């Protein structure tokens, strides 16, 4: 357990001190949201209608943008080999790194989303369900991103492949995530489905991603 904390602390430190990690994702997120009304025109009613979807799409793309970073540098400098040889099972290493990614990228985005919603006239009544849905959904997004990152870790042109492989898995998150924000109700089936996706990914994805990493490490 202590070792897992150490792994997570290491990743958090790297993400915050190197810059470029969380900062890039948030910058991208803000850029999309700010450019959106400029591109669509300042019609308040239209913006209110598309605000939850726009925030979700911006979240998906920002997470995807930072996905490559989860394993790549550790794979290139050999730290991942050392982690695979260590006492911590590779599945838990994956979980720790995905958690670090979630804490530094997806979670700040999910917290920032309702605030940025004011820029695009988000209905104040849906702020709570949107925040909750994004909190749960971003966990699934981070885990899925780590699976994509593990599958393409050693590939030179991995970016395009990550998008193609992970996009199908992001579609349900997007559909249920946006459906959860249609009314202020907090016990909607879509929100429950989103939690189910997040929990299932939490269990299954470390196993799949660790299997993919082992294929590259041996």
């Amino acid at each position, binding site marked *: 357990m202590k070792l897992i904390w150490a792994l997570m602390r290491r990743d958090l430190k790297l993400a915050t001190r190197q810059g470029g990690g969380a900062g890039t994702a948030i910058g991208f997120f803000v850029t999309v949201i700010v450019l959106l009304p400029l591109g669509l025109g300042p019609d308040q009613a239209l913006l209110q209608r598309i605000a939850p979807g726009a925030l979700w799409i911006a979240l998906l793309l920002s997470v995807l943008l930072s996905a490559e970073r989860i394993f790549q540098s550790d794979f290139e400098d050999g730290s991942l080999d050392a982690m695979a040889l260590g006492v911590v099972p590779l599945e838990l290493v994956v979980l720790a790194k995905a958690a670090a990614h979630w804490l530094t990228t997806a979670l700040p985005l999910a917290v920032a989303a309702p605030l940025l919603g004011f820029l695009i006239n988000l209905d104040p009544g849906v702020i709570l369900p949107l925040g909750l849905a994004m909190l749960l959904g971003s966990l699934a997004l981070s885990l899925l991103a780590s*699976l994509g990152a593990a*599958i*393409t870790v050693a*590939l030179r*042109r*991995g970016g395009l*492949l990550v998008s*193609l*492989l992970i*996009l*199908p*898995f992001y*579609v*349900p998150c997007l*559909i249920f995530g946006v459906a959860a924000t249609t009314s202020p109700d907090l016990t909607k089936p879509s929100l429950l489905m989103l939690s189910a996706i997040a929990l299932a990914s939490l269990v299954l994805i470390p196993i*799949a991603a660790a*299997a*993919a990493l*082992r*294929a*590259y490490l041996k």
Partner: protein
Amino acid sequence: MQQFANPARFLKLAQALLLPVWVAALVAFAAGLYMALVTAPPDYQQGETVRIMFVHVPAAWMALMVYTAMALASASAAIFRHPLADMAAKAAAPIGAMFCFLALVTGSLWGKPMWGAWWVWDARLTSMFVLFLLYLGYMAVWQAIEDPHRAALIARIVAIAGFINVPIVKFSVDWWNSLHQGASVFRMGGPTIDERMLWPLLIMALAYMLLFAGLLLIAMRSEITSRKIRQLQLAGLAGR
């Protein structure tokens, strides 16, 4: 299954099976198309356009079946280390993608006169499109990774993870309100479709399945041959 692990034995079997499979496919296609286009009655609501069903529905079934077969082959490659299972999954992917594409295109052609739109973003259509993306992603993995052993390991994970979409496609019309009609053949309580339409549909499905079998045998044979060539080339380089 293990006795077919020997590629030479598999090749011999494939060679023996190919001709009968092609003949049967030809007969099934001739009979199925004749029944679908001539003897089947037009629908009381849709008129003659209902004949698109006989091309569209079996293609969609096959797209799902081939992906299921790919996932099963990948799982058996991971569990039993069957040496031909990865090759079977790899060879099946482009064929399945073709069926999926055919289902999407014929569905689109059918949707225009019936729904008034080439494409609607509803649950069945979207999940089918996602299935097509999964096929492309799976094939891209084999393309992107040069070492075939490593590519096989990664492709297995992709195929098994993507299988989650198959039940979603199947039950999408029950779970969500969909423009697409519900199941009328494989459902609890028996098919609700008229017998004069059911038979041509089932024969067309059989024809598609035989076509898949023939194409799969050829694709697996060429895959085995190309691996042999690769081995020989490597051996030639090592001996020099």
